[in-house]
């Protein structure tokens, strides 16, 4: 069964089109990540799915039923917000129980589900505290617990890790992945962070200006981007884009090459001087400025002694390079 189907969903605020003709299918148990730069409409799309905004046109189906006119509470969804959005006047336990109480769930069922979520998220010591007495990470776990107790058909996450610091973000990311494995419910996750998208998703939806740019598994998008935007958005450091004509390609086209596919050689096709070196320990990013004033990032595995200002030559395998036309579309026929 499909968890969610979007058919030709459009949304506009006055004259501004925020979402344009979105079509999407999410299967049961699938982890789908909406990713894109800020202002691309990903959060609005999530709010349309949740029922917090009405679509201007198009259909939203959750678990096979059209829900365009169904209020958020009756859509069988649960949502986790970036700012946690816990009820400040309720304890952790009451925060988690509130939605079930509103639905008229019997008290013993509520107690059992809250206990289960408490165990899963290790919230035991905090049950009687109020949100103000918890740290950011604990609050986000409570927010996730509040979603889990409802046993929804579809989980919606709106940038849930953006307010956490780096180490906590990674820990919580792993927790969410584990949660997805143990619950086997469909999840939709909105983020602008491509690392979260790559590490969590079964399927990534790349959005730009309210349009879907490409849908696919993380590795599909990484290895076979449909256009220059997707190629540049996924991968860190970002893909290098060079004028193809200077490297023997067709005129007017852009050549894209990932930093890890470049190597430093004595006689490479790209010549320049080292402008900056980032030593990360595990690997090294070398930024080379070419004669044409373009900056190229090279990612070298391991530690690499390199001084700023020396000249360097770079080379790559043609098989690793992508060609894009002036409008940003892929030029080469996509390999099967």
């Amino acid at each position, binding site marked *: 069964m499909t968890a969610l189907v979007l058919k030709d969903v459009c949304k506009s605020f006055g004259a501004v089109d925020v979402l344009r003709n979105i079509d999407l299918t999410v299967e049961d148990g699938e982890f789908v990540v909406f990713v894109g730069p800020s202002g691309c409409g990903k959060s609005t799309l999530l709010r349309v799915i949740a029922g917090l905004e009405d679509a201007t046109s198009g259909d939203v189906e959750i678990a096979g039923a059209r829900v365009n006119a169904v209020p958020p509470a009756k859509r069988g969804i649960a949502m986790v917000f970036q*700012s946690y959005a816990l009820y400040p006047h309720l304890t952790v336990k009451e925060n988690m129980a509130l939605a079930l109480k509103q639905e008229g769930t019997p008290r013993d069922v509520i107690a059992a589900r809250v206990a289960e979520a408490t165990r899963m998220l290790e919230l035991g010591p905090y049950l009687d505290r109020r949100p103000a007495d918890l740290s950011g990470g604990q609050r986000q776990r409570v927010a996730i617990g509040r979603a889990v107790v409802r046993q929804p058909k579809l989980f919606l996450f709106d940038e849930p890790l953006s307010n956490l610091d780096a180490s906590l973000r990674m820990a919580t990311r792993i927790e969410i992945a584990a949660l997805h494995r143990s619950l086997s419910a469909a999840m939709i996750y909105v983020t602008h962070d491509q690392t979260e998208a790559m590490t969590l998703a079964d399927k990534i939806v790349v959005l730009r200006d309210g349009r879907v740019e490409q849908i696919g598994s993380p590795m599909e998008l990484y290895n076979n981007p449909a256009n220059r935007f997707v190629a540049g958005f996924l991968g860190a450091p970002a893909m290098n884009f060079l004028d193809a004509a200077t490297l023997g390609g067709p005129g007017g086209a852009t050549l894209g090459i990932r930093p890890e596919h470049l190597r430093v050689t004595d006689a490479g096709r790209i010549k320049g001087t080292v402008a900056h070196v980032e030593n990360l320990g595990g690997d090294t990013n070398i930024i080379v400025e070419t004669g044409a004033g373009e900056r190229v990032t090279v990612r070298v595995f391991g530690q690499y002694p390199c001084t700023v200002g020396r000249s360097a030559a770079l080379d790559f395998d043609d098989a690793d390079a992508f060609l894009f036309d002036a409008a940003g579309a892929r030029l080469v026929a996509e390999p099967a």
Partner: protein
Amino acid sequence: MSAARRNPLNSAAAHAALLAYVAIALFPVFVIVINSFKDRRSIFREPLALPDAESFSLIGYQTVLKQGDFFLYFQNSFIVTVASLFFILLFGAMAAFALAEYRFRGNMLMGLYLALGIMIPIRIGTVAILEMMVATNLVNTLWALILVYTAQGLPLAVFILSEFMRQVSDDLKNAGRIDGLSEYTIFLRLVLPLVRPALATVAVFNMIPIWNDLWFPLILAPAEETKTLTLGSQVFIGQFVTDWNAVLSALSMAILPVMGLYVIFSRQLIRGITSGAVK
């Protein structure tokens, strides 16, 4: 913390300025209260002296309390003030929530229209108000005052509260919607507690002018059974003879209830501020 704030000299100067302000603000109240405990002659001979064994007198309070209706005036003032504040806060918060939360045609115009009342004094419309009250048989009832004061307080209340309600996190309200809370529950249980400092501010702003008002009680409800405290105290002020003992005693007592209300609201105000700061 900046060096300027840690410097004890600066801190002492700041406290000196604040203490000076407090002294200036409290001085008239202080003079009223001490003189209300003195006999008539001492009031005029040494207005700034504290009451001593010779000058101490409760004659003013006795006059006021013997005037049988004084407690009724007190009660009237209290009912009018509390009821007006209740309606100002209730309707003001409801209108502010709608303006802050819902997108509808004319939202902006409606907000401007409601804010317009801040700039236009309601007393300009006194004649029309009196005509309306006569037509609806509300003259000489406390309802006349309550309705007028509610109308007078609403513009500023809507303006302040809608600004504060816009600051309440959208995520929180949306979380409530997803959890199945009704819009009324979201308004009453989630949003109102979070704008409590603003509610207290609006209440304090409105309370004093309503309590002290002489204009509308005199015009709309001058009957003996609906007189407010301010209007009732006027009986002691005559064209030729003024019973200063009674006037000062009445004023001293009039301060008490409004001070009690202020303490209640200001505690809310401080609690609101600190809970936000610690978060």
